[in-house]
């Protein structure tokens, strides 16, 4: 059973929302989860309608059945100081390094160190145990970088271990890599039923597999209901225009005669239906593509009014029903 859930996907597919819903879903029935943000955008705080998260794990939501969702926005600079302190007891030296600009260097310029710190912190939370010897968090859910960067992001410790061939950084990097490549970790992809996100999902999964990183499921987000298909629309356009106009008129939308209010609705409505049908067709093809990936698929409906807190709980409930237990 994986305990570190890495949620990636193309930009704009709703990674943060899905990660948050998953954190809520997995916290149900008295469990405790940690939702981790690594991109510094404070998307989690916005989603849960709270003030910006500090670099500190704090409870942000209660899940159905008494569970708890905690959240942490990892700031690379704090993470580095934290790390120095934790491993080297370098409290004051850390501050001196900061004065020198070394921390800036480490977190913005030095290759990959930033990503090392982010993944390292998440893995630390996964492994952390309380006084009772049990894990502090049942699961850790990471709102991760987008598909294009995810493999490199997760593999950064591998690269660093090669760069620093001995010493504490080497050992730390190796330890993180062991967690990330173990069945404890699952990398999930969020996608929409559109060509580009589906293509990126497929490419991303190929990359993850090539590098031996454990793939989880694919979450199809913002699924819209199919109301009419192509055949129905063609039928309407090709033979039933008058009947449709009459039906519209009967429903109180004006006259069905040529030029009548109801009759004038037929063309624009049919045009919309054609677009809809085209999309339904496209979505069918994309869904087939995703099925071919051989991973569990989960679907979340489009919340037409945008995602607010209530919507988030609804998505979490949906996800929970579909999630393997």
């Amino acid at each position, binding site marked *: 059973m994986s305990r570190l859930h890495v949620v990636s996907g193309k930009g704009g597919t709703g990674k943060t929302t899905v990660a948050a819903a998953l954190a809520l879903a997995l916290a149900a029935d008295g469990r405790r989860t940690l939702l981790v943000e690594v991109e510094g955008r404070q998307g989690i705080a916005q989603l849960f309608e709270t003030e910006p998260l500090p670099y500190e794990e704090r409870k942000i939501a209660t899940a159905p059945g008494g569970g708890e969702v905690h959240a942490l926005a990892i700031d690379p600079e704090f993470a580095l100081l934290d790390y120095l302190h934790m491993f080297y007891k370098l409290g004051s030296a850390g501050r001196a390094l900061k004065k*020198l600009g070394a921390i800036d260097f480490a977190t913005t310029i030095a290759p990959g160190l930033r990503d090392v710190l982010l993944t390292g912190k998440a893995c630390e939370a996964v492994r952390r145990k309380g006084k009772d010897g049990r894990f502090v968090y049942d699961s850790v859910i990471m709102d991760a970088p987008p598909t294009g960067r995810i493999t490199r992001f997760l593999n950064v410790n591998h690269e660093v271990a090669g760069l620093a*061939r001995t010493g504490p950084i080497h050992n730390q990097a190796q330890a993180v890599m062991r967690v990330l490549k173990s069945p404890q970790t699952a990398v999930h992809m969020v996608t929409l039923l559109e060509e580009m996100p589906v293509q990126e999902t497929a490419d991303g999964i190929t990359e993850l597999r090539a590098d031996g990183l454990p793939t989880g499921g694919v979450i199809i987000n913002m699924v819209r209901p199919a109301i009419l298909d192509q055949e129905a629309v063609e039928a309407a356009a090709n033979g039933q225009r008058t009947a449709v106009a009459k039906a519209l008129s009967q429903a109180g939308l004006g006259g069905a005669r040529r030029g009548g209010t109801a009759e004038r609705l037929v063309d624009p409505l049919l045009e919309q239906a054609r677009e809809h049908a085209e999309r339904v067709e496209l979505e069918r093809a994309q869904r087939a593509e995703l099925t071919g990936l051989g991973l569990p698929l989960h679907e979340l409906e489009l919340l037409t009014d*945008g995602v607010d807190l209530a919507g988030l709980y609804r998505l979490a409930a949906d996800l929970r029903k579909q999630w393997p237990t």
Partner: protein
Amino acid sequence: MSMDVAPRLDTDALLDDPQTRIVVCCGSGGVGKTTTAAALGVRAAERGRKVVVLTIDPARRLAQSMGIDALDNVPRRVADVGGANGGELHAMMLDMKRTFDEFVEAHADPERARAILANPFYQSLSAGFAGTQEYMAMEKLGQLRARDEWDLIIVDTPPSRSALDFLDAPKRLGSFLDGKFIKVLMAPAKVGGKAGMKFLNVGVSMMTGTVSKVLGGQLLRDVQTFAAAMDTMFGGFRTRAEATYRLLQAPGTAFLVVAAPERDALREAAYFVERLAADQMPLAGLVLNRVHGSGAEQLSAERALAAAETLCLADDPADPDDASLAHTAEDSDPAKNTTGAENLADGGFVDHHSGNAQARNPSAADPDVSPTSAERLAAGLLRLHAERMQVLGREQRTHDRFTALHPEVPVAQVAALPGDVHDLAGLRAIGERLAVPPERTKRAAG
């Protein structure tokens, strides 16, 4: 009624203006930034300009559509674009490592260049860790502009965590180079030379000790060798980054913030607008992608839903009046009619009523006398319309919120395409839609 009506962004005028030499498309992920850059490129070329599109990380099929599937860091002519007007479209994808390597080769003597290129620290740095992309995008843009071969350079920004990180590149590089840390890194070579620096030296050796302890001796040596080898080049680096930064501020550059009419994307867009203003970067306007319209805006979502319900109630098998509805058909092709009805009975509807279709459609051979199908069809059309109108309303509200915050920012709306864009025809269609406002803008007057 909108409170503020934003001025319209005239993209054609922007592309046609010979003074416009650089267009930068920025925006958060997934809003169609790269597609917009490519579509503007196609349109500008077909309007007679010699254009190069520099993309950072295009989706594969989009790259293919412009014939730049191979990543080789050199602009390639895109076939079948421009021509008649003398315009040309070239496109290239940024190859970070190669740009970095070329920079080193151009700015260091051969021996030093070899040492740098072989350094493991350099190899990781140039292979594209977070941060490098921004510098290299700036570097490439500067190079393209310096060559002065194109009328217009269109660039999309790197997909970094904050899409405006590239604006920080010169400053960050500067603060690093001016900082003491680099001196600490180089310490072994320099320490001990000067008298009266004893205090600093103690600090420095303690620091090197700390850094060495954390990084491991071998990595520290790699970093030091790298820093020493790059020493002479760092200055040039910064000079170039600063020059490009000033180039972006200069007249002749136009920033376009790209967004989709969704809450998060427009919130990011508002942030970009503010950030560009703070950096005194010339903002031309907002491109609002995937805006929905409707040819039947006079019919509200509420009325459409109510009408659909009426039809569903009427569509009750217990209601004998149903039959009175449909008799005449002025659309008179009987063959087509038959096909239509059969398809319909085959489950053309994906909604809840489909289970009953067969039972209540006894005369499949004579479809137009089948009231149920027409009514159900009409109800489906109305439900779809209601959904569309809800989308429209939501998009309008998010757009209005943005306009209220930034009423001065001109906006170009791009009507949504039903399918995805992955070929030149699609890019042309987007360019067309960028230039011609979608129907819904008419609504703003009402």
